[in-house]
């Protein structure tokens, strides 16, 4: 089967999944107590029943649920994610505004955790049973067992407040009017702490997986074959063990995409990262149904995209599929 056909097949399946997610979440979210009109009226500090009713009419919340459902789903099928009550703009625009930030964060965290995880995992496996191995695996275990938000807080206190190395939050220096290289540098400085925080846990996951996978692959016959050819240990590790050991890591990475995107909610909140994770939490408290549904849809699509990417990577590594 060709790669293109495989991706196409996945995408087709994904569409059905996404539609189901929309349906499930629509009813879940509408089951929550309170509605956006109430919240907005509440934020205004004063409102009467007339005002709230007016808001409900404006948002179409006075219609029966099935009508709202039909309107929403038929909108989604035409790529119209509706209008955000809270932010007063089309949800799609809102999400497209915020999506680059989340993509930047998650992809960086993902890439960083995968790279570091694999490198350290290899290093630990190569020193199996020795001091270096214990040090690396202990470190991984520590990251694995530490709450994400806690790391985030500590990182801010240490790196931003005490040391002043990195900005504590935000997406870039506001109003600095930077361009070119300076802008990239500025963005990177802002990206560092959130990406590190989000990535640490996953780094630990990939590290552990890489280590055990490398150890397992090292026992395989073809490694013995490679040795019998007189290859150096370095070549064996690089050429024979690593690629084979990566397969389960890539699979795992694909399976954990959902957790990665979910973790972005926490990270974005703490670091004031203007992405869709934060948008999700905000629109949940505001009962901004359309935005919340839209974020769910897009983040699920992100998970699927991650899965497809890992699929492609898997195929690139493994000729058998």
């Amino acid at each position, binding site marked *: *089967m060709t790669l293109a*056909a*495989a991706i*196409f*097949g996945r995408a*087709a*399946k994904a569409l059905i999944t996404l539609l189901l997610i929309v349906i499930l979440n629509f009813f879940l979210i509408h089951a929550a107590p309170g509605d956006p009109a109430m919240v907005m009226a509440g934020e205004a500090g004063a409102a009467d029943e007339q005002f709230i009713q007016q808001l409900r009419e404006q948002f179409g919340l006075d219609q029966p649920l099935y009508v709202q459902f039909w309107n929403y789903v038929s909108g989604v099928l035409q790529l119209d994610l509706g209008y955000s009550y809270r932010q007063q703009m089309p949800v799609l625009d809102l999400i497209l505004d915020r999506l680059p930030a989340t993509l930047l964060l998650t992809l960086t965290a993902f890439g960083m955790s995968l790279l570091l995880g694999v490198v350290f995992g290899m290093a630990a496996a190569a020193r199996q049973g020795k001091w270096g191995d214990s040090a690396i695996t202990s470190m991984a275990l520590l990251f694995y067992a530490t709450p994400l938000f806690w790391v985030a807080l500590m990182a801010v206190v240490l790196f931003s407040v005490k040391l002043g190395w990195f900005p504590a939050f935000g997406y870039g220096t506001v109003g600095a009017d930077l361009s070119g290289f300076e802008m990239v540098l500025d963005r990177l400085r802002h990206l560092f702490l959130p990406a590190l925080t989000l990535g640490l846990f996953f780094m630990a996951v990939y590290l552990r997986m890489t280590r055990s996978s490398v150890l397992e692959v090292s026992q*395989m*016959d*073809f490694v*013995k*074959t*490679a*040795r*019998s*050819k*007189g*290859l*150096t240990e370095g*070549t064996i590790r690089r*050429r*024979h063990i690593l*690629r*084979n050991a990566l397969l389960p890591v890539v699979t795992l990475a694909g399976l954990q995409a959902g957790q990665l995107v979910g973790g972005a909610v926490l990270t974005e909140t703490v670091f004031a990262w203007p992405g869709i994770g934060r948008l999700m939490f905000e629109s949940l408290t505001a009962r901004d149904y359309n935005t919340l549904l839209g974020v769910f849809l897009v983040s699920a699509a992100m998970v699927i995209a991650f899965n497809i990417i890992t699929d492609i990577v898997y195929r690139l*590594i*493994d*000729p*058998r599929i």
Partner: protein
Amino acid sequence: MEPVLSIRNLAISLPPGADRDYAVQNVEFDLNAGEILCVVGESGSGKSMTANALMGLLPDQVAVAQGSAIFEGRDLLALPDTERRKLRGDRIGMIFQEPMTALNPLMRIGDQITEVFEAHNRHTPTERREKALALIQEVGLPDPEKIIRAYPFQLSGGQRQRAMIAMALALDPAILIADEPTTALDVTTQAQILDLIKTIQQRHGMAVMFITHDFGVVAEIADRVIVMRYGDIVEQGSADDVLTTPQHAYTQALLAAIPTDSVPTPVPVTSAPVLEVRDLRKTFVTSGGMFKPKRSVTAIDGVSFTIARGEVLGIVGESGSGKSTVGRAIVRLVEADSGEVILDGQDMNSLTAAELRSARRRVQMIFQDPYASLNPRKKILHALSEGPIVQGVPKAQAYARARELLEIVELDAGAADRYPHEFSGGQRQRIGIARALAMDPDLIIADEAVSALDVSIQAQVLDLLRDLQKRLNLSLMFITHDMRVAAQLCDRVAVMQHGKLVEIGPVSEVFLTPKADYTRSLLAAVPGTDW
């Protein structure tokens, strides 16, 4: 003759907690230029350990305790790691047992060959490619240009083993170590690979250390033989001497355990058939997805035969011939597409699930893998009594019968209260037989029931089976890839190829005057037929 390699006083220590302190001890032998030396022994004899020690490929916890191995004036065992690495693949090549796993699944065959040159800094990349193509040609692989770009999964088992040989040959080593290189192959492929090794050995004048458990292979290929047992060399000598006039009792026992080619006199089938199979068909279809093409493999292609009461019918064939599928289709572990399986007048294939559950008792199986065929979490008693109890036998009676059966298969009745992992492979196979007998079946299907066992154990289990069959007048369908075993046990033999029955008849007819070409080629390929 000048030895290329002299091993003196070799001892390899095992980690604490192993069943013995040393994997091998006091091993001394010479490997002469241009000879094929076969090292024979059963599993655990230390033959592979010796080879790995020479290559410097011992597992982490196993180490050479003492001894020397002089090769080209240097002691291999005393060389530093970097020096030994330089020798590997260059002066000493090695091939392994499992062609399925010995190649890196993610690398092209060509790259796996050329990296031998690369590891030893020989030639330019273009030259390497040329050399690789030549090697592929030399080991008899078709279409070298295509093979060089192929991945291992695109090759058959035999082809992979040829590719392995090409890698080992790349730098024209003085010694080739072959560790059971044909054990995992079908008999015809095995014959071809043995042939290839022999040809190449002669062409290159290499010394070959050939490790095997199969005296048939020894007879086929060896110049000299070393017999090992529990880490000791018990006998060594020329192939002729060892095979014809073995000195050591163990060698004698081993040779005696090999099923002979003396075909039993056919017993005419007189009684009524207990099983009749009519036009059985099965095609496996891998379910394609929306965008995946379906693939189908015809496993059984219109097979018909009968088994008479008290008869032993052998089904022989190579892997993929469909012989196991026939066995599983009869007991409906595999649902046949069409055809009838008539057991005492009742068509098994037409039974409903509920009817089947009670009818299943009548055909039982003995499985191949003694380690997978018993539930590791249940006591033996449970394994032997669960079936009868489900079929309505009172508990006490089932338990008593279970203990009785253990004695019938020559185990202690106390075995009932132990767990499977406390038993050896041969003992587990006996338990498997007892389990089949416990159901009091009309027919027993033994699917490669002795294939996983060492020769001496194999002989004991076969003896037991033969004895039980006679004593209890069992009807037996014996599925095997091993022509010798089939010849020894069966009344009639059916030969299968590509899902079809190519020949069926009394053992003597099929083996002595085979009608089908395929049968002839199978028989010709059996190693050591001349001896």
